[in-house]
């Protein structure tokens, strides 16, 4: 099949990553030990945050940002929501999952309901108050989130997804309430605000790894490790390019990558 100029190496890398993932999954399924994954304090803190909310008898709030289903950040928030819903259901802790994007709302509702069913607590699931569509657009959502957080006196706030100007407002309200706040985003412009106001922040790639990290499933972990190897390859290429550019001879590497 003919290939566009500059796409051959990209396709080869993609195919190699898929083969590597398949190999590591088979390796893990055969019972071999996988390399250890470093601990992500932010994700370990989710249990602590829900535990504290349980002890205080106050709710946990989960928000997944302003973007729709076409954004990988929104998709990456779903496994975390699933985990939070399951854990909250298990401990009978009130969960408020808020959406401010209409197409995301039914998906969140289905995920939270599934979390309650998995925990065998389907009777505790209240479709009206657990998953809420609060507003459309960040401005109205910021206002609604602040109000919800103050009225319900939340004890734990989990923000996962693509956030915009509302970040500072909601994170500062959470901090003023003394809630444990765990955030995760790949929106670089909002990271400083999350880091300054939240107790734990998952930065960029850590956030995307959250789903696989929380699942404890060997296949998911194998996938995460395979993708870490890919990152090592990408870092090596960046270093090689930087060295070759410093030596004034980056054209050979560029020509190879543009095959």
């Amino acid at each position: 099949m003919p290939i566009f100029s500059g796409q051959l190496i990209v396709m080869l890398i993609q195919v190699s990553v898929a083969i590597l993932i398949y190999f590591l999954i088979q390796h893990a399924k055969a019972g071999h030990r996988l390399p250890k994954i470093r601990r992500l304090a932010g994700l370990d803190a989710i249990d602590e945050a829900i535990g504290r909310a349980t002890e205080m008898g106050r709710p946990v709030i989960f928000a997944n940002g302003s973007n729709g289903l076409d954004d990988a950040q929104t998709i990456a928030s779903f496994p975390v929501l699933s985990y939070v819903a399951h854990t909250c259901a298990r401990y009978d802790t009130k969960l408020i999952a808020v959406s401010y994007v209409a197409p995301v709302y039914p998906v969140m509702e289905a995920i939270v309901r599934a979390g309650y069913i998995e925990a065998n607590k389907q009777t505790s699931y209240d479709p009206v108050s657990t998953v809420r569509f609060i507003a459309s657009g960040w401005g109205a959502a910021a206002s609604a989130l602040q109000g919800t957080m103050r009225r319900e006196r939340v004890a734990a706030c989990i923000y996962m997804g693509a956030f915009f100007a509302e970040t500072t407002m909601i994170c500062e309200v959470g901090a003023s309430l003394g809630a444990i706040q765990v955030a995760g985003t790949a929106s670089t412009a909002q990271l400083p605000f999350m880091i300054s106001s939240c107790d734990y922040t998952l930065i960029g790639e850590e956030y995307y790894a959250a789903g696989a990290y929380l699942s404890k499933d060997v296949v998911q972990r194998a996938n995460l490790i395979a993708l870490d190897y890919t990152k090592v390859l990408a870092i090596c290429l960046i270093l090689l390019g930087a060295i070759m550019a410093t030596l004034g001879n980056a054209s050979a590497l560029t020509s190879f990558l543009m095959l």
Partner: protein
Amino acid sequence: MLKRYLPFIMAVGIGLSYIISGSSPVISSWKATLDKWFLISTAFAVLIGTASLSQVHWRNLRRPDRRIYSVALGIALYGTILLGLIQTGRGAQYQILYNMTIVPLEAAILSQIAFYITSAAFRVLRMRSFEASLMLVSAAIVMLYNVPIGAAIWPGFPVIGKWLMNIPNTAAMRAITMGAALGGSATAIRIFLGLERSYLGGGDE
């Protein structure tokens, strides 16, 4: 079974064919078709979201403590849709409705940010550790670099401020951006391989 696997098969098939269509001229027209499908399916997703939202607020009407909010939402939602259908988005009353409600309300909410940033900055810039002290000094220099009085106090402030913004700040931001891009690709690969299915609405299963 079909409800579970059909969306998954569609997601994997369309995702993979989209990637291949970006690399090969043989099926490149397929990419344009998929882009059109995406726009159409997004419109349907909004429809599903609106229907689901209406369902929840219809149920709310039975609860006296929530009834008023659901009625307000229903009037705002369906009133705007109706006005938009009659006048289109360029209609005079539709524009007035938007410009007289949404625009000033968003501006009012946005104005809160100044106060929240001040309180966040106060928390971060307290000298509790070596890193926080470093942050305080860097922030002070960058602030002085951005105002004319900085250069008037000492000509070195703009030089150091510019270096802080262009070298350490850019290096860190680029590293985060590259990491996020690789993480985004990792999420896409997980979806294509069927390892990530929570977007189907049924947890990790």
